[in-house]
């Protein structure tokens, strides 16, 4: 606690006592740290009543009136001491690292003398201690204070305001009052990167990326551990898989997001993503083969009911079946490790697409949050998913939940498809990307939001010629977004 002289304290020998003599040797360093707000505490001695005579002798105050005249005007009441004045002022918290600007007018908390008009008091702030060390600056004009600047010194800083109270009928009194200024740390400076315990099972690298070139398209995907998991020292729970079947010309992309509270969900998302390849390849040449092609061509771009029905049935029997295989794979994993299926909870977003003469066909089967969509620079967006969500954030459904598989309508509702000649990209993402970039389900279906998203993604060279595409996408996924620190996975297919 620094000891600062208040003009007028006994140490300040030689100067006439300013103020009402109430500073009877109280140290400036006596900060009433435990003072309860709202109750003026005058520690130690009580406010002395200074006999009028004594004040005359000391010629106190800045009063211009002569002592004799003062004596007759002065009421016979206890003279306030500096300690009985409290300031009423409040400063907003400071956001560390960001420019701070606060202007306030100080006033006296309670005029301490009954019977005297409060309006005739004049408050002047003299100086502020404790601010300089934060790096913030202040300007004072009478009772008006402006504090401004930028600081990164986080913590609760005690400021001491020195002030003077003037009153036409009384000598002025100097006093001080303390106020805490809270400087919040800049959240960006607090995020740590911690490695998970090496003894834990199913280690997963913090990043993954892949690029796949096919005759019809270039596919790029990247997945990155979020700041949240990095701060906790846990793993990336997201995963993905990309694939292409040369024989049939079908492409697939799957992204999966392991549940945060499920301790082996990183394994669940990986197992589910890897399980789709084999069954998909089988379906590409059977249920999604020749008859399917015929139906797609008949369906064309306008879509008649009959061919639409055939397509839906084929998708139910292929994508639905593949998703079930993925689920069984996770169940098998749980049984093999003698652990609960719930520990492997993961979302599951599976998409397939193929070029036909009539245009590109794309379909998706999804469980959970995040989303899949076809984006077109000219036509906007066609979502192929409907996110599972509850009343509150974080509530979604998982591949492993029984309720998802209860009835065929439920499963059917999870499938959607589109045929379009004009496609810029097929995009699949986990909620680590959809939350910061789209926020709501409504915006995920809005063309303007997608145009903005695509523009942001423009810094990544997704075209087939760019060998660094996967790395660039991975870097892009490191973007900063306040409050959005989940694992991020994004897969993009661009027809060539």
């Amino acid at each position, binding site marked *: 606690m620094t000891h600062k002289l208040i003009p007028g304290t006994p140490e300040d020998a030689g100067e006439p006592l300013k103020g009402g003599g109430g500073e009877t040797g109280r140290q400036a360093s006596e900060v009433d740290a435990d003072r309860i707000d709202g109750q003026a505490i005058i520690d130690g001695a009580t406010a002395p009543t200074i006999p009028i005579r004594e004040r005359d002798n000391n010629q106190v105050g800045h009063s211009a009136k002569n002592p004799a005249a003062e004596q007759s005007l002065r009421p016979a009441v206890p003279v306030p001491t500096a300690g009985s004045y409290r300031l009423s002022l409040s400063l907003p918290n400071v956001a560390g690292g960001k420019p701070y600007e606060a202007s306030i007018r100080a006033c006296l908390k309670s005029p301490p003398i009954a019977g005297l008009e409060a309006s005739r008091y004049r408050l002047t702030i003299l100086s502020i201690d404790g601010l300089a060390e934060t790096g913030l600056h202040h300007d004072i004009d009478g009772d008006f204070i402006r504090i401004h600047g930028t600081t990164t010194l986080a913590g609760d800083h005690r400021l001491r305001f020195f002030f003077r109270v003037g009153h036409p009928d009384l000598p002025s009194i100097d006093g001080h009052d303390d106020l805490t200024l809270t400087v919040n740390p800049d*959240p960006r400076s607090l995020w740590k990167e911690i490695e998970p315990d090496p003894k834990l099972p199913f280690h997963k690298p913090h990043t993954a990326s892949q690029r796949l070139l096919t005759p019809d398209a270039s596919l790029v995907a990247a997945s990155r551990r979020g700041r949240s998991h990095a701060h906790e020292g846990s793993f990336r729970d997201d995963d993905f898989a990309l694939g292409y079947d040369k024989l049939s010309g079908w492409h697939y992309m799957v992204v999966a997001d392991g549940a945060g509270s*499920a301790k082996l969900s990183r394994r669940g998302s990986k197992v589910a993503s890897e399980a789709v390849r084999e069954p998909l390849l089988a379906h590409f040449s059977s249920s999604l083969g020749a008859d399917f092609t015929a139906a797609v061509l008949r369906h064309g771009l306008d879509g008649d009911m009959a061919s639409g029905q055939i397509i839906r049935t084929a998708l139910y029997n292929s994508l639905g079946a593949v998703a079930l295989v993925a689920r069984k794979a996770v169940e098998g994993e749980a049984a093999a490790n003698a652990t609960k299926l719930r520990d492997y909870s993961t979302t599951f977003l599976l998409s397939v697409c193929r070029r036909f003469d009539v245009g590109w066909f794309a379909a998706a089967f999804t469980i959970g949050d995040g989303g899949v969509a076809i984006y077109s620079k000219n036509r906007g967006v066609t979502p192929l998913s409907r996110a599972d969500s509850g009343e509150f954030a974080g509530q*979604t459904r998982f591949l492993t939940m029984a309720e998802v598989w209860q009835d065929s309508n439920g499963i059917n509702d999870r499938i959607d498809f589109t045929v379009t000649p004009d496609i810029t990209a097929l995009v699949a993402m986990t*909620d680590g990307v959809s939350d910061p970039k789209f926020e709501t389900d*409504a915006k995920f279906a809005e063309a303007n939001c997608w145009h903005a998203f695509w523009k942001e993604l423009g810094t990544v060279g997704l075209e087939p010629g760019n060998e660094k595409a996967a790395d660039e996408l991975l870097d892009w996924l490191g973007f900063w977004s306040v409050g959005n620190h989940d694992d991020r996975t994004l897969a993009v297919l661009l027809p060539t």
Partner: protein
Amino acid sequence: MRRLPIYLLMDTSGSMRGEPIEAVKVGLQAMLTSLRQDPQALETVHLSLITFDKDIKVLVPLSPLELFKLPVLETPDSGPTHLGAALEELCHRVDSEVLRSTPDVKGDWMPMLFVLTDGSPSDKMAYREVIPKVRSRGFSTIIACAAGSKAKTDELQPLADTVVTLDTMDAGTFATYFKWVSATIGSGSNSVGSAFSATLPAPPPEVHVVV
């Protein structure tokens, strides 16, 4: 950006007057300082402070942690402890302040509730009737702290998921208790991707979890 709403319901009845309420202040300040060190909390936590004695006061409506300032806690000389009425008011606040997900609105994380009392609710009937309302508000966890020797834990059991007791009501104990509250909030704010799993961090020795 998703918010994590935290509701603090503090007993300010006559028996808390003096040292206990001062100690609670110290504890709350310790909690704030601790929360401010957690980047996830700093970005998502929103706090509301409601006190109850014979009156219910919403001292601070739901506000971001970054802007939150601890107000003065006042205790009347004596009088009843209207916990039932306080919980009614809490339900109103939650209904008006907590955002639920719609296609157009990004919902909050499930809110959390921390209740602190040193005695027994005076409005017992109102208290009993409001409990199901509170429990259906979607709190991911409700923690009730029965502070001091007069607090009755069995009355708090129907309300809370976890009831804890504190042996003493001094500043040190409250600081420890509120630091544990802050750790609990911290693990709540880190629980991305699915509902809060309700595995609380281990309590410190001064905080006894009532089984």
